[in-house]
């Protein structure tokens, strides 16, 4: 009998259970894992797992669910209990996967080449020709390394008799490998005792093989397009932050060391692919794509796709770029192909499939249709092609009427459907509400081409259904995931992705690839948003402090502070009470946080893990109004600390490349604009409210200490203005920002040393010169007050400065980010000439 955690676990009837034998005893592998202290009791596991959940949240491991009201970035669902597979069992799976990879690669090469499979009758031609994913413009393309599939995923499940079988293949841009890696990192850290209690295969070696293989393909392409001396450059192509697995794209890009690019970052010239960077076009030789086949080129493939690169097919055809996997490779993952694979393998390789697959029939074949229609109830009806929106129907659950309706529907377009024998998936324990429950599972495995052979990832992404009765295991449908431990027969070596390199490398001080214009644009705006958020938080804190019952600070500054906050969309209801203020914060802070979070998301692959961890929680701020004032103040303080730490990290940890300069430029320009704005409002006070307002201004500009050290008691505006506007040595002063801006501009690619050649540099220099020219005592003078304005000169000065800096920001954008803006207009429909 079982005790401890497994006590009370109820296996599901009729299916294989991963943890328990048929007689209810623990399987050996599971016994060893559950015997470790991590699984000693529910409390221990809960405790350790809380740490894992925190890591997942802070690392921003997310998965986007389409149509989810929570919007982008749902935390990644990871279960603490790993799936454990014995070495001997895995060996058979591995052999089966390698055999399958070889088969699928052959099929893709044949369909896009000689099509002997049609002539021999091994495949019904219609199963391919009716597939919208069969990309005719890609026919005849031979990849430079002659490898049609570099990276494949295969979903496997366990049948009731304990044998593994194949459910699905993914051959164009398989997802999930990055999540598998992240699952491993989190699980092995949080449950280190059980992880270390046995030899678990490491994953790094697989990724190294994958990277070597892609690099090899890229270097062959580079040789073709640029000659033998060229150093290959590979990029990871993403559809962007709205894709369901964007986290993974950024994660893998960082892990593999490839720049993460969007379609708009790339351009095709002379049938070659280039990356648009700040210093011009740089050649690209390899593309690891996460973009689906037909979206990759709006000229040759799906017209109107804004995600792709016009002309990519032509570059691909010439072998000037290695696309992994080759365009059109999705053809073999179609369920329509499944039924033909065992036969092809027998005919071409004279072998039966080692891993069986679900019995499957493409209904476009007349004989299949006839056979299946007689006994429809035994099958699951699925779409023949992934692009066809149709949810699988389990026919045994239908009443007679619905079954007839389904039959009529299938008969109308038989080529669009397959009939598959239902497979009852095995169940695995999942930790839910403090106990283990049985849930159906599917394991996604990964195979990479390696030299002339294949490498299987010793692990995988195990996915579990949300409910016990769910026939479909899908993360989109709300399921979860697990780490997958493949036990080794001998102790494993610890690997990293860095190869030990014996040969010398050329030392370099810059990244192999220049900064893409789009990334520079995003970093610039990240800088602006970070600063904007900081100023807003400072204002919020200053205002809130003045509401506190024991406030030593002048409450008379509140109206002016509220006017400052107005500019950020924070408008508390009247009368201005603390509770109203907090409610206004709850409404006003999230949009600014969201803008910051979004802009951080777009450059996520450029931020260090630590930097990302700081900004990520701002994406989900918690409410302030329903807490005690002290707690709200602490929360605000917490946000401010994150921003301050981020700025510190950027200062201390980012190399002084162009990326850093654009981040800085954004930050400096925003700080100067915001300070000018605060000066304009708080500096306009006169009479009794003057000291309170000036005090607030110093506080918002974080210059109180410095002022006190200089002037002791008296609070005079000219002193304040000198400190927050013209003092070069004060990092908060506008003069400091302008000096920094001028300095950064000198290093940008358009500049020539010693000249003020560009409009942006001339503008920045003029702002600084204007500031130097102005006497702060004259600005502080209120003797020429007119109408509303107590100090017209100050108001004019601050307004002009804000205006000029905004213009500078626009000019910079025009100069450096212009072609980063998605200006691509797919004119295909309108480019159509005469119609007869």
């Amino acid at each position, binding site marked *: 009998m079982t005790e401890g955690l497994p006590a009370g676990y109820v296996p599901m009837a009729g299916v294989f259970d991963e943890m328990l034998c048929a007689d209810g005893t623990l399987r050996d592998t599971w016994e060893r894992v559950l015997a470790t202290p991590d699984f000693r009791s529910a409390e221990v596991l809960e405790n350790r797992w809380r740490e894992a959940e925190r890591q997942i949240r802070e690392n921003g491991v997310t998965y986007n669910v389409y149509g989810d009201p929570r919007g982008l970035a749902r935390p990644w669902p990871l279960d603490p209990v790993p799936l454990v597979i014995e070495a001997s069992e895995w060996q058979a799976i591995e052999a089966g996967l390698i055999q399958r990879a070889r088969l699928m690669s052959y099929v893709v090469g044949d369909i896009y080449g000689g099509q002997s499979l049609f002539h021999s*009758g091994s495949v019904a031609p219609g199963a391919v020709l009716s597939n919208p994913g069969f990309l005719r413009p890609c026919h005849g393309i031979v990849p430079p390394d002659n490898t049609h599939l570099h990276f494949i995923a295969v979903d496997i499940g366990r049948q009731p008799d304990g044998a593994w079988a194949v459910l699905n293949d993914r051959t164009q841009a398989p997802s999930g490998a990055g999540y598998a890696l992240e699952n491993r990192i989190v699980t092995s850290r949080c449950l280190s005792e059980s992880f270390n209690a046995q030899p678990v295969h490491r994953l790094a070696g697989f990724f190294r093989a994958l990277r070597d293989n892609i690099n090899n393909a890229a270097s062959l392409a580079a040789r073709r397009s640029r000659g033998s001396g060229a150093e290959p450059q590979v990029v990871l192509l993403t559809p962007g932050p709205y894709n369901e697995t964007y986290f993974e794209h950024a994660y893998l890009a960082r892990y593999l060391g490839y720049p993460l690019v969007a379609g708009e970052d790339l351009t095709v010239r002379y049938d070659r692919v280039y990356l648009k960077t700040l210093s011009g076009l740089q050649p690209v030789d390899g593309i690891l794509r996460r973009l689906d086949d037909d979206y990759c080129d709006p000229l040759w493939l799906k017209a109107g796709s804004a995600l792709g690169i016009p002309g990519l097919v032509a570059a691909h055809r010439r072998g000037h770029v290695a696309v992994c996997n080759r365009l059109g490779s999705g053809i073999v993952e179609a369920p329509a192909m499944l039924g033909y694979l065992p036969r092809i393998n027998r005919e071409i390789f004279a072998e039966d499939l080692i891993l069986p697959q679900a019995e499957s029939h493409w209904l476009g074949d007349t004989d299949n249709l006839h056979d299946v229609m007689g006994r429809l109830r035994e099958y699951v009806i699925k779409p023949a092609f992934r692009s066809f929106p149709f949810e699988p129907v389990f026919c045994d659950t239908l009443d007679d009427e619905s079954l007839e309706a389904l039959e009529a529907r299938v008969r109308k377009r038989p080529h669009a459907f397959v009939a598959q024998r239902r497979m009852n998936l095995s169940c695995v324990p999942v930790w839910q509400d403090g106990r283990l429950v049985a849930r159906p599972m599917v394991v996604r495995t990964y195979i990479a081409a390696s030299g002339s052979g294949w490498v299987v990832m010793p692990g995988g992404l195990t996915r579990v259904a949300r409910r016990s009765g769910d026939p479909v295991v899908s993360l989109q449908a709300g399921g979860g995931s697990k780490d997958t431990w493949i036990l080794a027969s001998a102790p494993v070596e610890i690997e990293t992705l860095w190869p030990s390199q014996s040969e010398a490398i050329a030392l370099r001080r810059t990244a192999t690839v220049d900064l893409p214009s789009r990334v520079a644009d995003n970093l610039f705006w990240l800088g602006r948003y970070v600063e904007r958020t900081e100023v807003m938080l400072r204002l919020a804190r200053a205002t809130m402090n003045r509401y506190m019952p024991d406030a030593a600070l002048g409450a008379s500054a509140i109206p002016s502070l509220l006017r400052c906050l107005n500019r950020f969309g924070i408008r508390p209801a009247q009368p201005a009470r603390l509770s109203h203020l907090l409610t206004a914060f709850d409404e006003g802070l999230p949009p600014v946080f969201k803008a910051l979070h979004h802009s951080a998301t777009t450059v996520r692959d450029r931020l260090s893990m630590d930097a990302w961890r700081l900004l990520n929680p701002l994406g989900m701020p918690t409410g302030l109004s329903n807490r005690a004032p002290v707690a709200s103040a602490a929360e605000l303080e917490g946000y401010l600390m994150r921003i301050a730490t981020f700025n510190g990290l950027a200062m201390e940890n980012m190399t002084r490349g162009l990326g850093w300069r654009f981040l800085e430029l954004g930050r400096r320009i925003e700080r100067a604009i915001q300070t000018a704005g605060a000066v304009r409002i708080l500096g306009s006070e006169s009479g009794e409210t003057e000291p309170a307002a000036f005090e607030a201004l110093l506080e918002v500009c974080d210059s109180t200490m410095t002022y006190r050290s200089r002037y002791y008691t008296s609070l005079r505006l000219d002193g304040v203005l000198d400190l927050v506007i013209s003092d070069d040595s004060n990092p908060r002063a506008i003069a400091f920002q302008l000096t920094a801006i001028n300095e950064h501009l000198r290093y940008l690619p358009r500049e020539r040393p010693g000249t003020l050649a560009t409009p942006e540099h001339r503008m920045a220099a003029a702002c600084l010169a204007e500031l130097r020219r102005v006497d702060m005592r004259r600005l502080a003078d209120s003797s020429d007050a007119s109408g509303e304005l107590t100090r017209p000169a100050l108001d004019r000065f601050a307004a002009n400065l804000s205006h000029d800096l905004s213009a500078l920001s626009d000019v910079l954008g025009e100069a450096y980010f212009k072609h980063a803006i998605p200006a691509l207009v797919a004119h295909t429909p309108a480019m159509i000439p005469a*119609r007869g």
Partner: protein
Amino acid sequence: MLFSVVHRTTYRYTSAVSLSHHTAHLRPLDLPYQTCRSHQLAISPLPTSVEEDRDYFGNGVAAFNITQPHRELVVEATSEVEIFVRDRPDYLFDRPWEDVAAETAIVRTPGALYATEFLFPSPSVEITDSVTAFAQISFVPGRSILEAALDLNRRIFEEFTFDSQATTITTAPAEVLILKRGVCQDFAHLAIACCRAVGIPARYISGYLETQPPRDQPRLIGADASHAWLSVYGGNGDWIDVDPTNDILAGIGHIALATGRDYRDVSPLRGIIIGGGEHHMDVGVDVERLLI
């Protein structure tokens, strides 16, 4: 019969186009009854390169891109094509259309394999219940494939009105069926959808039609237009070219440019441009009969 064809397309943009990529299907096909004697493509401004190739369906396709900023693009294709007289495939009066459908349902011959390419719905040819119902009036049981094809051709000609304003290039066959109006492209797509709905492969042909000037009037240069018709599989490797816009079998005046599943496979000129703002397009086709 020898023809000279000049096909000139002009785009004018309101603001400069900084980069453009294009593909063109403008080279006349070589077929048993048609020979392309010469073909030239003149592009202004000068593209960085022009790559000519055969596409999947065997059509000539040219790809070019222009990297210099421009406000006007002119693509002029000049070809000389010889067309031979074709016999009416009267023997197809004896072949029931059901036999043709059965031949492609289970592919056993290279001819049927090629035809299978044109059996399924394609991006511009969607098959709906209304299309099937319309098709079944022509494809009645036991009728010969030629008779059925000619009947469909005639019905589209008689029941539909030629109207260049009623549809756009993306109008689906089912919509044309409701509008009862359209241009040659719409009629060809509809007829193709009808054939495929009953299991008969049919392919799209883009090309030109020589138009006869009215008696005693000079031939107007550029008055002709690009044209479209279809080819219906007649079984056993035979194809029947029908022109539903004119209710005729394609003949001596039909000059074929390219063939594919539908318009999108063979659009004469397509492109992706960066910049450009609004644009205006002008097309002139001039088909002239030459003396041999």
